[in-house]
């Protein structure tokens, strides 16, 4: 920025204008932060589950171990999807911040930053889209897991019941 802006006479006005233009990126930052909150909460939950399953795996009989192993694989897949979501959301955040900076540079300086600004904001939106898709994948995996778990519990219970009635007769 060699010439330092066009309207040097009213710097406050121009700065206020830039800040107003930065409203949308800042809101995007807010929504991505909310998404990151969701992702990290879920990642913590998955971590807790892994802890539980690993502990249960140490003291378990063989027929139950297979189910637990399957659960671990499932949880591993879920953490991968969540990691991808978190990374994409973080990249989106960085891109939004870059867009705001470019807005500043473009208004105060003389460099033509139009394309770069568009690229940064577009990259942010695309990354946010990717993060949401990764999260949706993870949620689908989780829902399948819960229902598989319920079905497994039900099956085990039925097995117990039939074994119990065998013992009775």
């Amino acid at each position, binding site marked *: 920025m060699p010439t330092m802006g066009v309207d040097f006479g009213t710097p406050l006005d121009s700065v206020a204008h830039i800040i107003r*233009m930065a409203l949308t990126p800042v809101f995007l930052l807010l929504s991505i932060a*909310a998404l990151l909150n969701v992702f990290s909460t879920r990642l913590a939950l998955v971590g807790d589950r892994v802890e539980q399953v690993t502990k249960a795996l140490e003291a378990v009989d063989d027929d139950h171990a297979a189910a637990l192993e399957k659960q671990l694989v499932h949880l591993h897949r879920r953490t991968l999807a969540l990691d991808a979501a978190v990374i994409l959301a973080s990249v989106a955040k960085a891109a939004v911040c870059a*867009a705001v900076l470019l807005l500043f540079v473009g208004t105060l300086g003389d460099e033509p930053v*139009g394309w770069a600004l568009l690229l940064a904001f*577009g990259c942010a939106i695309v990354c946010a889209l990717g993060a949401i898709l990764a999260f949706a994948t993870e*949620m689908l995996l989780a*829902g399948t897991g819960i229902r598989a778990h*319920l079905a497994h*519990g039900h099956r085990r*219970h039925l097995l117990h019941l039939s074994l119990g009635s065998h013992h009775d007769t």
Partner: protein
Amino acid sequence: MALLGSETLGVSLDSVARIIQMALTPVFLLTGLATLLNVFSTRLARVATRAEQAVRALETAEPDSLAILRDQLVHLRRRSLALDAAVILAAAGGAATCMTVLLLFVGAFGDGSIGPVLFSVFALAIILALAAIAAYAAEMLMAGTGIRAEVAHGRRRHLLRWHSKT
């Protein structure tokens, strides 16, 4: 938007800034959807915990409470399905919102008139958000019914025990 596109082949800062300002509404919608997703996933985690408890209780249950537990499991399954639907719908709404912003960009800088597409994608996002809220409301109603059923069951059992004692 098409006007803007024809005028700016070398992209000026002002035009980009104007498009970014136009994207304010979709971005707000994205914030709302993210907040909704937060609520949904918290509830889903709670349902998962409850399911865990119920499955564990099923293994060491006395016969008279078995039917209740099994009812509970069916109920939890239904609730997790509703919440899954809500989450998927909200996520799809978020994706559609992001697509709206992208289309806004394309519309401003490409020369095709994408007005109808833009409109339908944004409408789709709103409808998906609405459907997510409806699924969530259904889940809440189910949860309320379940709690009341449990309370009624607890009271009945208590009365039964009391009767057999006297």
